[in-house]
């Protein structure tokens, strides 16, 4: 993640130059999406939260000082918005669920699993899902931080409080596993 480029883009956005938003979105969307996804499963809700997060972020740009990392701020907003939504959803789940069932809602409430909010396109990432099932928790975390969120291994080593050489070794072991997983996942599909 090019921190300087992000800060430069934010300076443009502060001036109301909306044409710079596209690049800003492209640079940050994976991290924002993934941050929200760790809290919320439903794709449709994730989309809404993503949108709300970016809007909140832009609307509070004037509060961000020039030397502050805007990316961290955006992720904090995304995470908090997702948590708020999660709290709301957990509270009203039972009520809406009961109403929907009584009214025989066309959305097809599943009584057994209470998946009334998941009638949207599912997250489709077969290789990633396979990795989640077959890697250890630590390995998966390293995979997330490096491959998906784009942290450099030096940074991940600091986050996990591990020596760089150890982290590198683990990372390479993980990628070797991913290589095998890839063949299993995509060969099966063929």
């Amino acid at each position: 993640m090019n921190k300087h480029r992000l800060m430069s883009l934010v300076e443009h956005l502060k001036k109301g130059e909306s044409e710079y938003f596209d690049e800003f979105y492209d640079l940050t969307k994976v991290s924002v999406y993934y941050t929200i996804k760790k809290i919320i499963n439903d794709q449709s809700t994730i989309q809404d939260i993503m949108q709300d997060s970016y809007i909140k972020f832009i609307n509070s740009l004037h509060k961000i000082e020039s030397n502050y990392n805007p990316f961290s701020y955006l992720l904090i907003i995304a995470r908090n918005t997702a948590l708020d939504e999660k709290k709301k959803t957990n509270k009203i789940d039972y009520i809406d669920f009961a109403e929907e069932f009584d009214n025989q809602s066309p959305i097809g409430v599943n009584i057994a699993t209470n998946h009334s909010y998941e009638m949207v396109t599912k997250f489709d990432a077969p290789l990633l899902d396979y990795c989640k099932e077959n890697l250890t928790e630590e390995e998966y975390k390293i995979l997330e931080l490096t491959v998906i969120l784009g942290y450099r291994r030096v940074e991940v080593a600091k986050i996990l409080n591990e020596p760089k050489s150890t982290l590198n070794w683990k990372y390479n072991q993980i990628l070797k596993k991913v290589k095998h997983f890839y063949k299993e996942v995509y060969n099966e599909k063929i």
Partner: protein
Amino acid sequence: MRKYSKKIKQEVENNIPNLKASIKEKIDWNLIKQNNMQNLQAQVKSDNSKTKTKTFNFRFAFISFACVVVLCLAIMLPIALSNGNSTPSTYYVTIDVNPSIRLEIDKNDKVTNQYGLNKDGVILLYKENLVGKTAQEATEIIVNKLNTAGFLDANNEIKLYVKDNYGKESKSKEKSYKDTIQQHLETTHKQIDLRILEKNELEEIENFYNNNHISEYQNELVNAFKEKLIEQANIKLQFISNLSTMLEYFVINEDTQIEDFDIILNMMLEFCNKYYISIGADFTTYENINEFYQELLNSKQDLEQIIAGINQGENENTYADSLKDLFELVEEDLYKEN
């Protein structure tokens, strides 16, 4: 290996909605601008009431004396018949900073090409792709890079010059880029003088570029880097080959006695040391040696693919992308981290 990690990233990206348009629609950009202006005005008032003290961040690697930093935008075109009313189609933007850089700008103010005017300029542009960006954006990025590299400090001067393809100085563009640089310097809290370059200074820079074949240096750097990378990969391959040959008989049959095991063990430790591999295992057990052997074979395969990829020009996109890919290969596949 990068193919598989890229696949994972691609899977995630495919699920991410494109919300750019809907987000932009919902924002009142004029209000954003107003809020920012009010904030700036409030800051200015607050700053004026304080005593200003200069503080500087000095970050230098090699500069032992004050260097003059010259920023000049020179726009040159091939000489063409002109009735005085036609507008240029291509602008050659020369940014001479010690390092020195040139940008080519089209009539829409977009960068179409970039290159260093001296070797330091070529190096400064490493991994940076400015093509497609506006001249203002490119200027900002370059000033950022100069700042990061420690070339901007109180002893320096930034010189700015703009001319069009007819050799005529463009004062309006100079003012525009000067404002951009000034704004950017304010965000870096640098107190640096900004003035217009003298014409003779520009000529000196251009003569240096032409007389020293700097244009070829850029390609030379990338090719030299590739060759070095291949050389190091081959060294590693040879090491792997030697080690795996020695271990091969042992791993086939657990009961096989290895003669001079100490020598082989030292080689294994040397390999791990040299390539920054964490030794998380005891190399005296069959299982661990076997695992190490299998990893050697995997590494061998990866390296062979990398070498083949470089030779086939697999990593060649733009100049900036080529270098970025090569740097990644060094960090991730050859020497890990150091």
